[in-house]
């Protein structure tokens, strides 16, 4: 498998001649991912706030998000295509729907796991409900929220590869074209780079978590 010709596993000559395409695919892939995670996160914050304020809404909201999550990605995109067409909207509707199940459950669970004693203390100090949410509940739930961001981001990177199959660019378009021409270099480039992007974004979010929650380092968790 030494890279000498176009029949080898990866043909570096091809890679060298296509750096511009690889760059624009990277940009598209990143843009689709970040857009979906950002919209999904914003929608989920609202949904989570509703769930926390009106407890009975949690089961239907989480249930519906879970149902969406169960639908295979290619099938969901296939459902949407006849309605919304081959465009970014189709891709984003699908991608955002998948992030909801991950976000809502984690955010609600994170906020609920805040110790009642802490909430009691905050109430005793005279914080209003909104103030308590912003200065006590959310910071304490931060590790759970960042964990959800990590899962959602990594999952979305993988799903954006699938949107490449419906002509939305990104690394999936290399995979699609490589598979249809039986040209392994393109498959390796598309597949390999999407793995690299997933791992890289995950690492960035681990860094964010460490910066955002300095208190978790001061008190190392012990094994049970």
């Amino acid at each position, binding site marked *: 498998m030494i890279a000498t010709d176009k029949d080898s*596993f990866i043909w570096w000559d091809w890679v060298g001649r296509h750096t511009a395409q690889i760059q624009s695919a990277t940009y598209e892939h990143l843009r689709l991912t970040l857009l979906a995670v950002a919209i999904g996160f914003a929608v989920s914050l609202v949904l989570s706030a509703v769930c926390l304020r009106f407890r009975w809404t949690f089961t239907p909201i989480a249930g519906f998000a*879970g*149902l969406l*999550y*169960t*639908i*295979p*990605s*290619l*099938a*969901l995109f*296939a*459902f949407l*295509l*006849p*309605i919304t067409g081959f465009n970014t909207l189709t891709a984003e509707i699908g991608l955002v729907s998948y992030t909801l*199940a*991950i976000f809502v*459950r*984690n955010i609600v*669970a994170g906020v609920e796991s805040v110790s009642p004693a802490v909430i009691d203390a905050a109430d005793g100090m005279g914080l209003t409900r909104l103030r308590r949410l912003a200065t006590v509940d959310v910071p304490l739930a931060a*590790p759970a929220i960042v*964990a*959800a961001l*990590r*899962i959602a981001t*990594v*999952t979305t*990177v*993988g*799903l954006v*590869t*699938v949107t*490449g*199959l*419906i002509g939305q660019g990104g*690394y*999936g378009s290399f*995979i*699609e074209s*490589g*598979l249809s021409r*039986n040209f*392994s270099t393109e*498959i*390796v480039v*598309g*597949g*390999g780079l*999407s*793995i690299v992007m*997933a*791992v890289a974004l*995950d690492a960035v979010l681990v860094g964010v978590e460490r910066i955002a929650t300095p208190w978790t380092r001061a008190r190392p968790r012990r*094994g049970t």
Partner: protein
Amino acid sequence: MFRAFVDYVTVASHWSGTSGIAHRTEEHLRLSGAVVLAAAVIALPPAFWLGRARRGGFLAQSVVNVGRAVPSLAILALLFPISLRFGFGLGFWPTFAALVILAIPPMFTNAYTGIRSVDPSVVDASQGMGMRPFEVLTRVEIPSGLTLIMTGVRIATLQVIATATLGAYVGFNGLGSFINEGFRQRDDAKLLTGAVAVALCALVVDLVFGVVARRVTPWRAPEINLRKESES
């Protein structure tokens, strides 16, 4: 659009033959079943063993992280040229291999956590009753951890059914083939047929798992928890 779909699925000839709905559904489910079985054979014994020994927590965490970071289409696509090179051809084998790899992480981690989180005093008591290690595993630890073990198998199975759809792109003749052909021929009816069939399969299997989980662990309400994998 909806009319076209109904027209498509109500034509008898669309159900028969090797590219018919019946055959492709059967292939899809057969492959998924084989994958889940193979992945369970590979993933569960080491998970039980490490969970018993209460070792390998770092390994379990790494397996989840890696499993989540690898996009399913990427692994499927990467196995395609490898399969061709080593003479396994297209279709079944590259899809099978890719899906086994994808199914292992959720099964392994959940089974590991399930066994590991069994109350040590219960294990102690069963040893005190004179049970042999194998009996402790099969009669105490596995039943106690069954909810989590089942959750892992369920997550893996749903992921396998979903990803088998993508197998169409490496020549697997499952339900994804309707979607793939629908895209290429701009045939919305075909596209929807594939989408509905796959979504139905996933939902039905999920329901069946819910019922089975309740049956095998009557002492505990089953929980569907996406967070299982994410706790760090």
